[in-house]
């Protein structure tokens, strides 16, 4: 953004100063080169390739050398006329919003809590959050899977032996889709709360104490101060974090995949990520569905991103 600004001023006064200004401009573009190459290779090329493949009949045969046939929109129409695909899209969007909102609420509460409690308690909380954030996904998934295990899981053991609910002794948590998504939500939220909590906490620290003090002197209650001053002031942080959550929760894969393999019914629990993965022998279809997912992500977040950019300009 900033790099384009000098051009405007440069055209109006074509004298010596622009030359001096042009040099840093070239330098700035030069600095962009490594990042652009990296993004182009790591993101741009695969994206283009995915897009191209989505218009082809591209399966294993093609991967082993057979020519890929152009099929136009066939992959897209096949997918979009399949009611199952729509079920999965609906499921994914619902899962995404529930998770994003629950994560935001819990993250926000923890951030506020961090601000209010003493140093020792705060550090303990922060360290625990960091550990949850830092645990590799697959490692923590294994632990969660064991916790919820039907036969030997700690949760069933506590419910049946400690709390005396005998019917829970052999309860399967993942065999019913709703219960499956409850477990998945617990895990996904647990994994993403630390990021939200820390980001919002950082935002809260930026709220000037003087403003709060002034409001207090004016007789604003704690609730009024929170909703009237704190929230508007940290709104940019909240927007960005919520945006990221929506994107992440829409494309959730690992947690769902691992839970499915732990013994859940696959077809009833597929989300977009795992459904795309199941097309692992039909790259054309996988590419088309991935493109649909990209469009969906943009549709869900586009309005939001525009809003944020506008605020940025102000």
């Amino acid at each position, binding site marked *: 953004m900033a790099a384009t600004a000098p051009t405007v001023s440069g055209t109006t006064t074509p004298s010596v100063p622009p030359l001096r200004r042009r040099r840093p401009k070239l330098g700035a573009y030069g600095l962009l080169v490594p990042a652009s190459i990296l993004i182009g290779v790591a993101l741009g090329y695969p994206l283009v390739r995915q897009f191209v493949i989505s218009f082809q009949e591209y399966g294993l045969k093609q991967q082993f050398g057979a020519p890929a046939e152009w099929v136009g929109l066939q992959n897209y129409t096949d997918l979009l006329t399949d009611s199952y695909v729509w079920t999965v899209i609906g499921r994914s969007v619902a899962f995404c919003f529930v998770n994003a909102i629950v994560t935001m609420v819990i993250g926000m509460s923890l951030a506020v809590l961090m601000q209010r409690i003493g140093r020792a308690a705060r550090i303990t909380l922060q360290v625990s959050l960091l550990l949850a954030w830092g645990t590799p996904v697959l490692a923590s998934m294994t632990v969660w899977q064991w916790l919820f295990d039907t036969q030997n899981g700690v949760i069933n053991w506590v419910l049946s032996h400690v709390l005396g609910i005998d019917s829970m002794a052999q309860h399967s948590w993942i*065999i019913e889709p709703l219960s499956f998504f409850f477990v998945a939500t617990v895990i996904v939220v647990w994994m993403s709360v630390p990021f939200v909590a820390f980001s919002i906490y950082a935002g809260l620290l930026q709220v000037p104490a003087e403003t709060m003090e002034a409001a207090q002197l004016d007789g604003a209650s704690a609730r009024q101060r929170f909703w009237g001053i704190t929230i508007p002031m940290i709104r940019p942080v909240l927007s960005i974090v919520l945006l990221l959550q929506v994107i992440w929760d829409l494309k959730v894969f690992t947690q769902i995949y691992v839970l499915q393999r732990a013994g859940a*019914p696959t077809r009833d629990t597929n989300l977009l990520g795992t459904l795309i993965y199941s097309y692992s022998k039909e790259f054309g279809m996988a590419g088309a569905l991935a493109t649909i997912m990209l469009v969906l992500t943009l549709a869900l977040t586009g309005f939001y991103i525009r809003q944020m950019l506008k605020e940025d300009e102000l």
Partner: protein
Amino acid sequence: MKILRFAAVGVAAALALTACSSGDDSPAETTKPSESAAAPEAATIKLWLNGTDTPDALREYLTTTFAAQNPGSKLVIEQQDWNGLVPRLQTALSSEDQTPDVVEVGNTQSATFTYAGAFSDLTSLYPELGGDKLLPGFVEAGTADGKVMAVPYYSGARAVFYNKDMFKDAGVEVPTTLADFTTVAKKLTTDKVSGFWFPGQDWYNGATWIYTNGGELATQDGDTWKGALESADSIKGLEQVQDLFKTATKAPADSDSNEPWVPFNQGKAAMFSAPTWARWSIDLPECNEGVAADDTSDDATAKRTKQQACNEEHTGVFAMPGLTADSFATAFAGGSNLGIPAKSKHQELAQNLLKIIFSADFQNQLGKNGLIPGNTEYATSMGDDVYAKAAIAAALGAKLTPAAENWATVEGDRILEDFFQKIATGADVTASAKAADQLISDALNK
């Protein structure tokens, strides 16, 4: 993440494509070994074996024999995990630089690769490797459009392991018919013990009841495949399966056929069904000598031998009985095939390796290690103990999954896991079978 990963596969595919079009002289195009050729150029070739089914001694035999017979060349064996094997092969086999030179692939996964043209045509080598004597079902699974692309490595027939003490306590004998099996399993079941360990997603074992009653998973009619779970014969088998799920097992419905010996060792199951090599995983508490696995002292070895003998004394094994006494059930055959990737640069050396694997010497060693060798002529090498007898009896009638090009999609979508799980949770058999058939037909005819 997922998009990225897919894109990565795409990139790999793209690179593979360009690599293949630029190299006109690549051996991938000429799969026939040149008749006049002198010894092939010395090279290091890679063999991918999956899991730990092939014992170390056999691996060593392969590397040393290969080096001796092919001066200057070397064989490297890389072990792959069964889990996620198909996607890994998909990427590796399509790259001339990354591809192994001989690969082991699960028999039900073969069709995916043979139809895609991932393997070299072995039709001309087939007679030399054993021809008609090779396990016929496996050869069929490795054949595409009339060409033999993959050959049987070994088969592991399923047999039922049982706890002799529990049988004695319940006053039951080894069942003689499939119906009798259910009766015995019910008698053995208590609040805590499963008469038969039968987890809800275990369709590998569930298929036994379908096959034995004359049913099929899918049938072919001309060019189209059709799910066959709703046929009268299949339904009969599936109703017996549901009966077992309801009354003879405490195994969770959300679990699969992995490691059924764990509950058996814990005393939570009186019977389980698994390939006969499961005998090495049985570890009853009353027999455990507490030796560390990596302890190689004489004392430890002696204790281990004692422990194994004790385990086998308390454990019995039988082949699943058939519909009538003295007949055996048609079980699902596990096992694998071997193929030479079409993109391998060392076709001739790879064929030399296959010749070693199909030599009498190696086939007999497979048998001695409890694996049914690819060449049936050498099945006698399995010996005549109870394990071998059960294995051979079960293998005679064993059957594979339908040899459909897209069968791997059925497994990839976990249609049968979902289906058997539904049966296990008490869903209506006929309605569930109809729904599953529809999914199977859709997947196979894509």
